[in-house]
C-alpha cells in the first residue's frame, strides 16, 4: 500500500503574526516557517503504518515556494520516503491544491491519503474533502483514531458534541485532528538520511491544472484589539463589578 501525505509550509504556530503595511497580506519575510502542525500528525500516522507493515511507501507532496523543500525534508526525517514539490511562488487555493493532488494520487496509484484537517494559515479546512470529491473516494475527516483491517479503515472522528465512528473502504482520504497521535522528534541520523532522499520538482504550470484564483483578496487587516481592563482585589469586588458594572450576572 502507498500512502500520500501532502504537507504545507506555514508560519510557525508560535509566531505572533503581523499584517503588512499595505494591508494586503500577512508578513512572511524573516518569519520562522514550519510544517503545518496537523500535517505533522498526518506524516506521523503514515510512518507508523509503514513501521507496522501496513504500508510500503510514504510519499510526501508539497505545493509552494522553494522553502517547501525544507518542509518535505522535515517529513523525510520523520520517515517519509520520497517527495514531490509542486513549485508555485504564489498562494494556491484549496480547490486547485485538490486538483493537483488528484493528479498525483492517480499517477502514483496511492491507496490512502492522510492529510491535516486544516492549515493554520488560511484555516480553510477544505482540501481533504475536496480531494475526496474529485476522486469519488470516501472521506474520514477530523480523525482521532485509525484502525486498518485489510481494505476497511475504522475511523473515530471528533465532532461537535463528542465522537463518531465510521467505516470507510480504501482507497480513501483521512484528515487528522489533534489527538490522533503525538508526532516524533526526528533523530540526528534520520535528519542526515533525509538530505539524500529524492524530491521531484514540478513547476505548477506543468501540472495541467487551472490554478487561477477564484477568490480575490481585497484586504487583510488586524481585528479590533481587545484592550485589557483592570484587576480586582477579591471575590467581593469581582461579584460587584459583574453585577453593577458589566451587568452580566
Amino acid at each position: 500500500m502507498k500512502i500520500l501525505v501532502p504537507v504545507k509550509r506555514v508560519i510557525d504556530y508560535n509566531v505572533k503574526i503581523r499584517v503588512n503595511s499595505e494591508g494586503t497580506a500577512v508578513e512572511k519575510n524573516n518569519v520562522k516557517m514550519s510544517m503545518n502542525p496537523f500535517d505533522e500528525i498526518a506524516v506521523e500516522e503514515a510512518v507508523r503504518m509503514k513501521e507496522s507493515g501496513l504500508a510500503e511507501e510514504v510519499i510526501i507532496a508539497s505545493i509552494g515556494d522553494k522553502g517547501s523543500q525544507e518542509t518535505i525534508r522535515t517529513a523525510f526525517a520523520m520517515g517519509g520516503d520520497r517527495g514531490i514539490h509542486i513549485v508555485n511562488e504564489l498562494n494556491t487555493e484549496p480547490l486547485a491544491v485538490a486538483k493537483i493532488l488528484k493528479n498525483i494520487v492517480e499517477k502514483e496509484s496511492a491507496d490512502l491519503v492522510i492529510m491535516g484537517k486544516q492549515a493554520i494559515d488560511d484555516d480553510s479546512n477544505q482540501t481533504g474533502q475536496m480531494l475526496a470529491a474529485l476522486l469519488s473516494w470516501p472521506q474520514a475527516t477530523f480523525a482521532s483514531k485509525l484502525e486498518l483491517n485489510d481494505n476497511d479503515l475504522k475511523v473515530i472522528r471528533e465532532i461537535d458534541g463528542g465522537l463518531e465512528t465510521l467505516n470507510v473502504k480504501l482507497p480513501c482520504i483521512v484528515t487528522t485532528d489533534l489527538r490522533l497521535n503525538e508526532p516524533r522528534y526526528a533523530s540526528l541520523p534520520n535528519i542526515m538520511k533525509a538530505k539524500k532522499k529524492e524530491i521531484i520538482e514540478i513547476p505548477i504550470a506543468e501540472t495541467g491544472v487551472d490554478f487561477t484564483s477564484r477568490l480575490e483578496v481585497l484586504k487583510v487587516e488586524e481585528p479590533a484589539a481587545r484592550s485589557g481592563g483592570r484587576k480586582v482585589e477579591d471575590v467581593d469586588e469581582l461579584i460587584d463589578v459583574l453585577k453593577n458594572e458589566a451587568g452580566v450576572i
Partner: protein
Amino acid sequence: MSILVIAESNGTEVDRGTLSAITAAKKIGNEINLLILEETEEVINKAQKIKGVSKIFTASGDLEGGLAENIAPLILECAKDASHVFSSAGTFGKNIMPRVSALNDSQQISDICEIVDSDTFVRPIYAGNALETVKSSDKVKFITVRSTAFEAANDEEGNAEIVTGPVAGTNGKSSFVRRDLSESDRPELTAAKIVVSGGRGIGSADNFSILGAAVGASRAAVDAGYVPNDYQVGQTGKVVAPELYIAIGISGAIQHLAGMKDSKTIVAINKDEDAPIFQIADYGLVGDLFEIIPELSDKIK
C-alpha cells in the same frame, strides 16, 4: 436566484448555528430555502415558522449518520437554482461543504464573520489574528458561517412551503457505525450565556462547575483528560462568544484566545499575575483558584 441553507437539528429543534446561517443568508437575498436532512415532524413544524424561509426541502433515502458521500449530491440537487449555499461552520458543515463545493467546481469560502456584498465576505485567518476580505468570482458560492458572528434568526412569524426533496443514495464505500455524544445537563457551549473554562491547573471538571454555566476548557485541560475533547475552546476547538466568559487557570495561549476573544465580558482568574490572559480580560483576579472558586460559587448563589 435563491439561497440554500443546509439545516442541522438535534431531532427536536433547528440548531442555533443554522439559525445564524439563515440570518447571514438574509443579508444577501430574500428567497431563502432550507434543506432539512434528519427530519422529524417537530423540527419541520418549528422550521416552518422561521421568519424569512420560503421553502423547506425534506430529504429521504440513506441519511444515516449524515455521510458526506451520500448527502453531497443531494445538496447539489437542491441547489440547482441557488446563487449561494450556506451552512454553519460546525463539524457537520466543515465536513460536507467542501465536498459539495468541489463537485460544483467552486472555491468555498470558510467560516465567514461578515458579509460585505453578495460576492464579498470577511473571514478570520491565522486563528482570528487577522481578517481577510475576499471577493468570489464563482457563479455559485458555497459558504460556511461562523455562528457567533450572526444573531439567530427568530422563529415566530414564518410560513414556509414544504417541498419533497431528493432521495439520498447509498455509496457503498463508507458507512456510519455510531456516535458517542458526551452527556451533560449543562447548557450547550456555543449557545450558553455564561461559559466557565478551566486550564490544566484545574485538576478536574468538578472544580469549575459554578454558576450553572456551560463548561469549556483549554487544550491543555483536554489533553490532560479532565474533560472530553468537545469541551475545548480555541482555534481547533469551539468558538464561543457568551455574555460572560470566566477563564480559570488559563494562561491565554493564542490558540485559546482565538476561541473566546469575542465574548462580551471576560474574567480571568490566575495565580500568575503576568499571564497573557490578563491583557485581554475585562476583569482580572490574581490568586489561588482553589480558594477563589469555592468562595465565588458560594457568594454568587
